[in-house]
């Protein structure tokens, strides 16, 4: 609740700031980057999310690695798993899984056919300890895995562990496996650790600078959804990230790698749009036999491809993500969209004037936010308000009667009629007056996102209203949403929280406003927004370690 109230306050302030049109931004010299006289929120120690854990392993050791993903349950805060991660710890059952995964990974990484990728030396005997070769492994690989430089004497401890394990098991490489496993279980690996320089590193009113290693991890997980690569880490160790010039050089390098930046953008949208939940969203298989696992996988991929194509490849206006008719199709998806498809992932353009435009007309969104056998205007409306417009809707009263909502309730042929009955109760109307007009715009799409014009033999009406803008049908809704000021305000806020891994402090309101002004004046260029966030003082500094009491303050 505290978080919710805070977001609303923040939103109001930011929207106020939105009316002042910022001077044209020139990226690195954006208004937001120029602000540096505030103390940002505290350190955000985050448990790697399931997706981050997997992508970190892959980027360190290769995408062909086989291992069990974590069993820990990631939870959402403000709609983001990456924010829930800053409260999560490690359970006994979760650690058990991490340990088996660590052993699986270590034994593959040091198997005869792969070990050459990481290890330049050979032991004198494969069955005996070899401190020199073990040291080379420890010093060469340890910092990459731990995402930090080794402390004094630390390397010796790992070499000792390797020696002990080798003696016990009679195998030099199994000795190294145990060292690698210990890194993969360390709190430096399982959590994204953040460290700050002492207070005197900046002025008292600006908080403390984050260390170069911390910046490397922040940048890498924000932009690439993975651990820093060797070059970024080297730059951190060499002190380059402590200078503005060196920091910007690495930032530019990360932003210019389309492949990896694309992965980062996918991870963000996967999180924000809850696309991992699509796999387990229940569907009535007797009513929708055509909704197969292939459809589910392709539906998620379709949206992510469209997002990356739009925001990164085309560098198009973020807002047009909700109106673009460009997308990609597969043979699995063709029947759901009612179109012939000859080749998987062919570029496809939804017909002009048709009911489909933008990623909210995709099967992924429509099927995820629906019931198992019928559409749900409420779920769709709620997601858009909550996750895209940062307007959280309170939970319904406990004993709400949903009878009226059923197609066979006798209380109306269409969802619109049935919801009207429902909204006649003023207690319900408070929230449903917000959700329903938005969600009902999507009633032309059924529980799995197939187009329809009728429900129970009656023509479906999709008119509605968002803020002050009225629309006649879904084709009017898309531009209305696109032009809603809250849409971009909310994206700035979500992306900032995603980047720093925590809620913003009150002191960061001004920078959020400035970021939005920059977004505004820069043509809603998403990559530039990412860049501007990485350049803010809030991204590069902190108030310091997070104290338990700080939670009361909303940090």
């Amino acid at each position: 609740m505290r978080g919710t109230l805070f977001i609303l306050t923040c939103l109001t302030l930011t929207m106020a700031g939105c009316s002042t049109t910022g001077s044209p931004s020139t990226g690195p010299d954006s208004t937001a980057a120029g602000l540096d006289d505030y103390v940002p929120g505290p350190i955000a120690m985050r448990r790697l999310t399931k997706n981050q854990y997997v992508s970190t392993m892959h980027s360190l050791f290769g995408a062909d690695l086989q291992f069990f993903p974590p069993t820990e349950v990631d939870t959402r805060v403000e709609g983001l798993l990456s924010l829930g991660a800053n409260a999560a710890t490690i359970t006994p059952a979760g650690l058990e899984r991490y340990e088996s995964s660590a052993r699986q990974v270590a034994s593959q990484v040091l198997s005869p056919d792969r070990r050459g990728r990481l290890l330049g030396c050979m032991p004198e005997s494969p069955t005996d300890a070899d401190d020199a070769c073990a040291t080379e492994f420890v010093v060469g690989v340890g910092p990459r895995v731990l995402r930090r430089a080794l402390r004094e004497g630390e390397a010796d401890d790992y070499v000792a562990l390797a020696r002990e394990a080798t003696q016990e098991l009679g195998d030099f490489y199994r000795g190294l496996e145990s060292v690698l496993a210990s890194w993969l279980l360390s709190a430096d690996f399982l959590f994204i650790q953040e460290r700050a320089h002492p207070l005197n590193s900046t002025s008292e009113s600006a908080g403390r600078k984050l260390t170069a290693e911390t910046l490397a991890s922040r940048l890498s997980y924000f932009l690439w959804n993975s651990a820093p690569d060797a070059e970024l880490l080297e730059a951190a160790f060499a002190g380059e990230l402590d200078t503005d010039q060196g920091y910007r050089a690495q930032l530019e390098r990360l932003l210019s790698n389309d492949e990896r930046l694309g992965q980062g953008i996918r991870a963000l949208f996967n999180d924000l749009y809850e696309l991992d939940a699509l796999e387990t969203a229940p569907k009535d298989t007797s009513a929708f036999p055509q909704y197969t696992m292939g459809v589910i996988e392709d539906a998620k991929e379709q949206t992510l491809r469209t997002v990356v194509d739009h925001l990164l490849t085309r560098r198009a206006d973020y807002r047009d993500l909700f109106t673009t008719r460009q997308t990609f199709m597969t043979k699995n998806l063709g029947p759901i969209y009612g179109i012939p498809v000859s080749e998987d992932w062919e570029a496809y353009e939804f017909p002009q004037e048709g009911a489909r435009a933008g990623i909210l007309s995709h099967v992924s969104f429509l099927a995820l936010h629906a019931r198992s056998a019928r559409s749900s205007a409420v779920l769709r409306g709620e997601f858009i308000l909550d996750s895209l417009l940062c307007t959280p809707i309170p939970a319904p009263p406990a004993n709400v009667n949903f009878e009226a909502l059923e197609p066979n309730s006798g209380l109306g042929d269409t969802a619109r009629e049935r919801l009207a009955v429902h909204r006649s109760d003023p207690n319900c109307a408070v929230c449903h007056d917000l959700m329903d007009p938005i969600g009902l715009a999507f009633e032309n799409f059924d529980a799995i996102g197939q187009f329809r014009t009728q429900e129970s033999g009656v023509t479906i009406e999709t008119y509605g209203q968002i803020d002050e803008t009225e629309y006649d049908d879904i084709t009017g809704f898309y531009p209305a949403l696109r032009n809603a000021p809250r849409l971009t305000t909310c994206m700035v806020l979500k992306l900032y929280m995603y980047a720093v891994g925590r809620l913003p402090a009150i002191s960061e309101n001004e920078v959020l406003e400035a970021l939005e002004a920059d977004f505004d004046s820069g043509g809603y260029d998403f990559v530039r927004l990412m860049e501007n966030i990485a350049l803010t003082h809030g991204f590069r500094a902190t108030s310091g370690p997070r104290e338990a009491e700080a939670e009361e303050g909303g940090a």
Partner: protein
Amino acid sequence: MSKKLGRRRVLHGMIGGAAVSVGLPYFDCLFNNHGTALAQTGAFPARFGTWFWGCGMNPARWVPTTEGSGYDLPPELAQGIDGFQDRVSVLTGFDTPLNGETNHPHYAPPTVTLAGQAPTSPTDVPRSTFDVEIANIIGASTRFRVLDVTADGQGSAWSAQSAGTPSPAESSPIALYQRVFGTGFQVGGDEPFVPDPAVMVRKSVLSSVIDQTKALESELGSHDRQRLDQYFTSIRQLENQLDVLLREPPDLPACFMPNEPGGENLAQEITQVIDTHNLFVDLLTIALACDQTRVFNINLWRIFTDVRFEGESTGYHRLTHDEFVDPALGYQPLSQRFVIKAMDAWRYLLTQLDSIQEGDNTLLDNTAVFAHSGTEFPKDHGTKNIPMLIAGSAGGRLNTGLHVRGAGSSTSRAALTLQQAFGVPVVTWGDRNIQTSSPIGELVP
């Protein structure tokens, strides 16, 4: 499943999709050399479990009209405890107050019951749950401090390690089998015991992890230090697990190596969900008999469940909202079928625990299993009159066979009673108006 089983003859399960019966050792009170210690002292360990079923019951068909012992058995309750009545206490009329938080009806009641604190959002995990406190007392020496399972695919069985951290639950019986009975598991007395050097190395790895992570502690603020403490606790628990594997396993008469489940179907049709549940129960029963764990949490199905009868399109949770109450019957007839299925599943758990003989008693007697639901009358999704059951006396730590009415007091009283019975040093439990210092006196011997 609802077939009444003999008190200790068979462990009945779905292995490889087909029902099989596994004969249990016919030892009763006979112990060989390895079991003498337990036999002599009679000190079978006390065990604890929780069992959650989602959408309540129909009060007129479930709540006894009489209190105390010998309470009457309305039909839905009878389905769950017939034959076990003297060993099951029924708790009715206890509420889950929300401390002014919005009611998230699909999440709040089990969270309040187990954590003593109301969630602020559907995803909020406000603090650790009380089963964790009990596991800290009785689970510290076993290989697994606690085993969590879920029959309907939900990620956790409502247990939480700490704020923001639900405990992950196994959703696949095969995965549970491999975790408990796979590599490293050995039945005591079967063959000469040789400690595995690889396990010793795994222990060294964990010591190294602790040593290296200590340096981090001083850099963290108090919030993150608490989280790191949990991480250390988990590492120590794993060390303990490895210690157990390095010791010769005790020769427990009821312990045996079960067959690996040959297949599983994790679909959401009722038959599959019940099969999954029952297979979990079989494996947990053997895990308890082999003293691999002393604490477990089972989620049969969440409140927001999509479990369905075969060939029907509407899941249970939808039915509870949508189905009309039959005025002649006074309940929702379609939804009611799920209550019966849930009570069948509960009785299956009691039957299996009772099939393991431990001295003069059974595993059920040495266990306290706490069943709780997310609402009373399904259609209301209310937070009052949450039904609860406690089966077994945990080796005499609790009175059984009673019907106790809570008169609107908080379900946290059950949590307090159980914690105190297992020796958790706690005198008050719960947040603000959930808080209580009054255990349920009738249950305290």
